[in-house]
């Protein structure tokens, strides 16, 4: 037994040595991406056809694994291109000096901004390659079975009949969800925005760990609706799932990016790929129904190739009520993550219970006059759906600075963890109290 395994081990080494000949040859461009296979396969085929001497090696990794992979690989062996949705991933890579600028790679026809949001990194480290907007995806079959009307605005998902039918992900898990939360916070203001987010979360069956978990569960029929990035919704629809997608008025359109990695082998060839992705041919590939992404190139440059009914990002941005402020979002980035996780993700069970009780009490109250019960419900609502951190505190520079500091320092980590601990406890108490008040109100109404 063991002697056989020893020879197997020797065989493994020999096989590893045999790999020598097959490692990356000059002219191979390795692309790290989190994008689905349909998209990458289309780009690989089209690019290799246009550049027969260059081979494109697509390496699909989750955003976190992708960043770790680039960071832990020695310079000279790194992949050439990083291509993903989450804008924060590119910020991290830039901060760690893992990206290079390429002023010579550009498409002049691409506008500088979409609404208020810069399409390219101002320092030129990464470029917008496609646009994505957030909206509501829903399962039509699920809606019909549960007698729900198709949602149009975020407010629809806060209603009583949607209790337990929504799903969302956490901003700390998904760079794009972070933008959705920020959009709502900026559009509605800190207090009102959190109130809506808390109500939507209270109606949620689950806060999924992966951002793809939401569209996946809606395709399945596991959830009824949820906030989703547009191409997930559209691709599901065009693939034949009984799902649909709608942009609410409160939305923002942001770019998905592409960047050249520093310390890669074939940067010259990689530039050709980025140029291709930004060019006319690369942009047209996005319109494929299975891909369903919005080009960064203005629709006027496509000469009528845009399918009828295809969403127009410029029009959506014009109609959108929010003027997205990227600096504000950046400043309170960690605070929003922390607050969301401590009071929603980790306390979902209690928030759900309180929300359900409030809905029930309100349904009982409907059409009756019972001031005492109404007052109790109002108190319950305030307790359950107010942010633990006040808007004035959230605007203080020192407070925000604490959250942006290095958690590796024990003193700072203790301070942040202590705050988080108190929010978590406070949220739990508030939800318990709200549940109690709502139940009292229900008991009062005969």
């Amino acid at each position, binding site marked *: 037994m063991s002697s056989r395994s020893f020879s197997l081990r020797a065989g493994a*080494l020999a096989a590893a040595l045999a790999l*020598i000949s097959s490692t990356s040859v000059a002219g191979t461009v390795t692309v790290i991406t989190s994008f*689905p296979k349909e998209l990458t396969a289309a780009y690989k085929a089209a690019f290799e056809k246009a550049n027969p001497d260059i081979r494109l090696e697509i390496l699909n990794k989750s955003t976190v694994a992708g960043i770790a992979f680039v960071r832990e690989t020695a310079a000279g062996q790194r992949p050439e291109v990083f291509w993903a949705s989450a804008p924060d991933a590119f910020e991290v890579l830039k901060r760690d000096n893992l990206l290079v600028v390429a002023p010579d790679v550009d498409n002049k026809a691409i506008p500088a901004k979409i609404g208020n949001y810069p399409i390219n990194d101002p320092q030129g480290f990464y470029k917008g390659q496609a646009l994505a907007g957030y909206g509501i995806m829903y*399962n039509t079959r699920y809606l019909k079975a549960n007698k729900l009307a198709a949602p149009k605005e975020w407010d629809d998902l806060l209603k009583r009949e949607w209790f337990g039918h929504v799903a969302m992900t956490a901003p700390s898990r998904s760079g794009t969800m972070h933008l959705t939360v920020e959009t709502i916070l900026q559009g509605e203001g800190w207090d009102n925005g959190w109130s809506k987010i808390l109500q939507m979360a209270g109606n949620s069956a689950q806060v999924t760990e992966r951002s793809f978990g939401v569209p996946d569960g809606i395709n399945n029929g596991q959830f009824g609706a949820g906030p989703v990035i547009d191409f997930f919704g559209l691709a599901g629809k065009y693939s034949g799932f009984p799902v649909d997608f709608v942009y609410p008025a409160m939305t923002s359109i942001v770019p998905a990016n592409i960047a050249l990695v520093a310390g890669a082998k074939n940067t010259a060839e990689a530039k050709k790929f980025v140029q291709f992705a930004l060019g006319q041919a690369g942009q047209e590939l996005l319109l494929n129904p299975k891909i369903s992404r919005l080009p960064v190139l203005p629709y006027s440059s496509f000469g009528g190739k845009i399918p009828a009914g295809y969403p127009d990002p410029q029009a959506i941005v014009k109609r959108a009520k929010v003027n997205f402020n990227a600096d504000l979002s950046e400043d309170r980035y960690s605070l929003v993550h922390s607050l969301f996780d401590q009071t929603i993700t980790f306390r979902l069970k209690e928030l759900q219970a309180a929300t359900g009780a409030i809905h029930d009490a309100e349904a009982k109250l409907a059409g009756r006059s019972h001031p005492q019960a109404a007052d109790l419900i109002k108190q319950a609502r305030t307790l359950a759906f107010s942010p633990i951190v006040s808007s004035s505190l959230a605007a203080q520079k020192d407070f925000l600075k604490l959250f942006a500091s290095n958690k590796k320092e024990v003193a700072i*980590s203790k301070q942040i963890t202590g705050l988080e601990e108190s929010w978590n406890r406070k949220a739990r108490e508030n939800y318990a109290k709200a549940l109690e008040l709502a139940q009292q109100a229900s008991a009062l109404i005969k």
Partner: protein
Amino acid sequence: MAGTFDAAAATAGPASRWRQGFGSWRSYLVLGAIAAFLLALLLIPIGTVFVVAFRDGDGSFTLGHFGTFFTTGLMRESFGNSLYVATTSVLVASLIAVPLAYITVRFQFRGALLIQTLGVLPLIMPPFVGAVAMQLVFGRSGSMNLLLEDHFGFSIPIMQGLTGVIFVESLHYFPFILMNLIVALRAIDGAMEEAALNLGARGWRLFARIVFPLAMPGYLAGAALVFIKVFDDLGTPLVLGQTNLLAPQAYLRITQVGLEDPLGYVISVIMIAFSILALWLSVRVMKGKDYSTLQKGGAGIARRRLQPAEALIAYAVIVLVLLVVLSPHLGLLVLSFTRIWSYSVLPETWTLANYATVFEDSSGMITNTLLYCGLAAGIDVVIGTAIAYLILRTRIPGRQWLDFAASAAIAVPGIVLAIGYLRMFQGVEIGGVPVTQTWLLIMLAYSVRRLPYALRSCMAALQQINVNLEEAAEMLGASKWRAVRRIVIPLMAGGILAGFVSSFITAAVELSATILLVVKESQAPMSYGIYLYMQSVSGRGAGAALGVLLVLTVAIGTYLSHILVDRANRNLEWKR
């Protein structure tokens, strides 16, 4: 009764002399080699990552982060939840595994081998698709609940909350108990049972007082594995949206983009410590007890023929259990033949296209999976057998730590191990090729991550073999090595196989380290292929098809190795 097998215990006389005598240079060499393996491929790599937990902002040593852990309410809550889920899962898994093992070993049974193979399938839950299939069958809008809603107007929220976690974990990991228990039951000396029967023990009493205690090493090995695995499991709670357990808390902190939170690593270190503690406790339980019996092989416990009524009950139990535990796989199979399956009891359109897609672009992945997992499991049983031998048959100081160190791997998140590998092997080359560019690291990561499974099975197998058998061989002139090769290893064969199978199939569904370590699609195993499909909306059917192929590949492998060992056993008997 206990005296019968305690008499053989090696506490005095020739046995102890024999043991001391084996503390020779050769054992030290083996110990050194294994220690070096664990150091290089487990402890140092994870050390390079975990160092964050012990470091202050300026790089100086601190235990301050651990202080933070213990003063945080959420952490205490998570710890309690993890403990509760792990303990309850062991109970539920035992309720499934013990009857299944007992019935198939104890009675004359048609297709016992098939049942034992099917019973292993739940371990092969391919990443993502397994969860999707489970949701489609048992979930809120799954077939079961849609049927219940339609016909009876209620549904069972079995996939929700901590109960959901316990349900899925028990279904997923009960085979660890099943496999080890079957091996242990088969290894029981039939004479023990006969003696008990002669003394008047029957039925439940016979089982509870004689048969089950004799199979204890196997049961404990499996139960300890289930406990530690569930305690450290990440995938199931995350899929079910349960965050307030230790493993998800660690993971969510470690994988947050752009933010290094030492608390994540602190939680991991604490989980490792606790897993070792649990293991140490299970070793303590076994201490001072000897479960070995002298006779092996053919004369196992008697196989009774079932009365027709009994047979009906036995088959009913088995079919029911298998139906429940295999329904995710049935769901997977159905999913693989569909394009769209959404909010309906069964899909409405059927297709073979998914298999065409999979064969077209992923056939290389099947070979890769077989190669990596086969090699990894091979390494695991060699090391597992060696460690078991060192611990149970020698008195080298520090031998117990090999077990603890190897088992720590269960609690290490895959992504941490993978980052450690990339960090440690940066710049290392074999014949001019950077090791990080080869599949060697994937294979080694599998072998390290799955070593605990093989190790527990090997330990349990050796515990049941009486040391007198080796002594006898040596007295007849066999060398130490020859005695090990000709007596110990053949007698351990069942346990070694169980270890190989559990390593192999759990490696086949490993994903977290794989995602990070794959550098080329041509080197990717099937688990990565499934991940790739499941990243896209329209890839779900194809992902399921690849998942079915994965299950089939592994199941056929398991079945063949059972047959192989059966045949080897029969040869052994014949020679005797």
